[in-house]
């Protein structure tokens, strides 16, 4: 089974491969490459995370410090699937421009599309996002759209041709975890394309709870990079994503408001001996 390694423990394989736009990936955890103390630490953390998809940003080359090399001098594009983002773009046209520049780098036609609407929250401008999605899909891009946890926007993005929809758990870099599990579950239930939760995961338990909702994957950056020990947190995130996936597949017990004993209620000794 090609996707047997999605989940590490022994024979408990994942019944569903993780496929986006016809391409199968070996890990449900995708990671960003920003905010690390050093390139060496970034590489070590990505290795510990087991991620195959790594995101990168497009920026001007600093001409006065050209020894400050781009990330491709550190990250081997043969070992990872590079997913360029349009982070920092505040309009559809700007995001489209960045996506085209990223594609011209020559690795793939995929883009993690962000159209940001507000500097304080970095919440998406969903109208601009939808416009940019349509434009880029028409140009042959595979669009993974970063959006909020609104079902209607998610449905419209799917209809516009996004190959994956990426609702936030909470705002970018906030580490607040998943604020609205109901909304995330509803999006997952209603969409046919993969749902990948992007942004807001702060620690391993957050990642586990996200995966327990049944979503297809998680993308995170700050949750790993801003930990005291990013490499160890990356390992924790890898385990948490797998644990959450197992738990989802296993199907949790029903919640009850009253206790139900785990031990037999029969065979007890007579009281008051």
């Amino acid at each position, binding site marked *: 089974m090609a996707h047997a390694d999605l989940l590490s423990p022994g024979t408990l394989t994942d019944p569903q491969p993780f496929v986006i736009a016809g391409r199968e990936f070996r890990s449900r955890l995708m990671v*960003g*490459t*920003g*905010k*690390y103390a050093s390139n060496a630490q*970034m590489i070590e953390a990505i290795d510990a995370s087991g991620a195959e998809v790594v*995101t*990168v*940003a*497009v*920026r*001007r*080359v600093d*001409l006065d410090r*050209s*020894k400050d*090399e*781009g*990330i*491709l*001098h550190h990250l081997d594009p043969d070992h990872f699937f*590079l997913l*360029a*983002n349009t*982070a920092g773009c505040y309009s559809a046209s700007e995001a489209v421009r960045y996506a*085209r*520049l*990223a594609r*011209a*780098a020559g690795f793939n036609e995929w883009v993690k599309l962000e159209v940001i609407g507000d500097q304080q929250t970095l919440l998406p401008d969903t109208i601009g996002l939808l416009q940019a999605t349509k434009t880029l899909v028409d140009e042959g891009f595979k669009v993974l759209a970063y959006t909020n946890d609104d079902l209607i926007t998610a449905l419209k993005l799917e209809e516009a041709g996004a190959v994956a929809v990426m609702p936030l758990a909470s705002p*970018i870099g906030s580490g607040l975890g998943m604020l609205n599990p109901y909304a995330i579950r509803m999006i997952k239930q209603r969409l046919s394309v993969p749902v990948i939760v992007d*942004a807001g995961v702060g620690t391993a338990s957050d990642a586990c709870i996200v995966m327990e909702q049944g979503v297809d994957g998680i*993308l*995170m*950056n*700050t949750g790993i990079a801003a930990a005291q020990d990013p490499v160890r947190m990356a390992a924790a995130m890898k385990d948490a994503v797998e644990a959450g996936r197992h738990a989802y597949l296993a199907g949790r017990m029903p919640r009850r408001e009253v206790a139900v004993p785990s031990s037999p209620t029969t065979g007890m000794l007579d009281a008051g001996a």
Partner: protein
Amino acid sequence: MKEMAAAGGTEVAEREIALNVNGGERRIPAGWTLADLLASLGLDARTIVVEHNGTILRDRSSFASLELTSDDSLEIVHFVGGG
């Protein structure tokens, strides 16, 4: 006459043009190609993308034949860490 022509020739070779690169003015010798500029900046063409007067150059083999002219506007970008 010959000497003067040679001097004139030198003058032509040293003529500079100004263009906009990544938001700042840069002066380069007239006649330079994009490949010449990238080499002078120490940039590896394989790791960058260039937008020339608003048009993204998707074919890197065109860099060597693209002669830069006065007031050209270039954006030279690459991948950096991001989420």
